[in-house]
């Protein structure tokens, strides 16, 4: 376990020592701030609209942090050949994968925490409301969803040598699932065969990332989602993450690292 934490620590150190992520951070913070501090005569509709935009920004930024960080981990180790002195030490490839996953996930969590804190402070100071529970739940669900994404990206990263291909494909897949994932079965019913069966099959086999989107709970002050549902969703995410990490390991386990 210490080995895994040591590996994760290196991922996190790299992230905060790279300048490009500060750009993303500051940009998100500035836009959130600009949207949050605009004063539109306390029109409830506009306020909600602005909150929606802020949360969307947070979603996109966190997704970018997760995908960009995860996609480059293993390819960068191989490209820079740092993987050789590392794997020459008593660490298994499974531990390497889990360590990389954990590092990416914790780093993403850190980014999420900062984003939500910023959001909470801005809305709180303007509207004097502090629905901490709702925020925590929304952030948790988003973080858990990103675990699936990171697992998926790590899997892609052992097959696509260029992080840019992994990044692009992952982004398209994730955004695709977020937008149409929940409608696939309804769309399926309107189609003829074999499209109908294929879509229905997809609906039951893709990881449903869209379930983790609790933005409406925050925007419409809907209170907290039932804790039982959140717990179930967490288990579902853990299962998917486990499947992706297992597949990553199966692909990486016997890989010849010198080619």
């Amino acid at each position, binding site marked *: 376990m210490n080995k895994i934490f040591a590996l994760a620590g*290196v991922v996190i*150190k790299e992230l905060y020592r790279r300048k490009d992520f500060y750009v993303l951070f500051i940009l998100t913070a500035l836009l959130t701030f600009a949207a949050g501090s605009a004063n539109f005569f306390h029109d409830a509709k506009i306020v909600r609209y602005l909150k929606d935009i802020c949360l969307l920004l947070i979603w996109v930024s966190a997704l970018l942090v997760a995908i960009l960080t995860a996609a480059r981990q293993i390819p960068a180790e191989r490209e820079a050949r740092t993987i050789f*002195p590392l794997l020459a030490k008593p660490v*298994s490839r499974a*531990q390497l994968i889990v360590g990389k996953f954990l590092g990416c996930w914790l780093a993403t969590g850190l980014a999420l925490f900062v984003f939500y804190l910023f959001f909470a402070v801005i809305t709180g100071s303007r509207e004097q409301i502090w629905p901490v529970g709702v925020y925590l739940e929304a952030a948790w669900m988003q973080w858990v969803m990103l675990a699936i994404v990171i697992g998926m990206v790590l899997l892609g990263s052992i097959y696509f040598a260029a992080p840019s291909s992994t990044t692009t494909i992952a982004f398209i897949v994730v955004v695709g699932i977020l937008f149409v994932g929940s409608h696939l079965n309804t769309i399926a019913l309107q189609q003829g065969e074999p499209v109908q069966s294929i879509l229905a099959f997809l609906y039951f086999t893709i990881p449903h990332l869209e379930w983790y989107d609790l933005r409406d709970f925050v925007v419409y002050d809907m209170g907290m989602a039932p804790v039982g549902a959140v717990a179930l969703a967490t288990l579902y995410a853990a299962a998917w993450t486990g499947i992706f990490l297992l597949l990553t390991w199966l692909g990486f386990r016997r890989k010849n690292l010198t080619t």
Partner: protein
Amino acid sequence: MTVILQTQKLRVEYRNRDFRQANKVALLGLDLEVRAGEVFGFLGPNGAGKTTTMNVLLGFIPPTSGSASLFGIDVRQPIARQRIGYLPELTYYYKFLTAEELLRFYAKIFGLSRSETDRRIADLLKLVELEHASKRPIKSYSKGMQQRVGIAQSLINNPDLLILDEPTSGLDPLGRMKVREIIQRLKDEGKTVFFSSHELGEVEAICDHVAIVHQGELKAMGTVAEISAGHPNLEQAFLKVVGYQNAAAS
């Protein structure tokens, strides 16, 4: 004496991406035996299969057939690498870490205690003369300094077996001297060193045992005296073994 590094009928084929072409056979049934306390020179011309052998020993590539073990443990198990140090042919390390952070990270991988780690890091930074730069990121180091970081990391766990892939070929004079010093010191401590090289004068000076590989096959193995018997020096013996008789005569 106990055998601590062994390969048996080790065969490695590199699969060719273009399936119309044959696979590249890098090793054809290599049998090697290195015993505790030996300084073992692994010799061969470029492309002989030295790096490939080390890559199998370190678990980077799976053997096509045959087996390899360190300390009697199959190299497929990570624990086989607990007591070894490795210095790659080309060294690269995490550029965004400092030398001290890098060593600390590797120490954690070995499961060293905090106090042990502190002591080792202090000793090693002194040994490779990087104390002054230990808190600077590695990306600010010169090439020679980066190579010395490599030497330090290979010794972080106080290894019983040191595996070095052409350790002196890419080094600056200070690095070379350090490597030679370190090999000598480890030898005095009764440790084992397995290193590849094609600089025969150097090998003759520091090794007690050698093996010569050529085109993936073992051509000779024994003490330096045994191999060079009947030849003016090791270099001539080497040239004879790998089939450059004319060069040897001239």
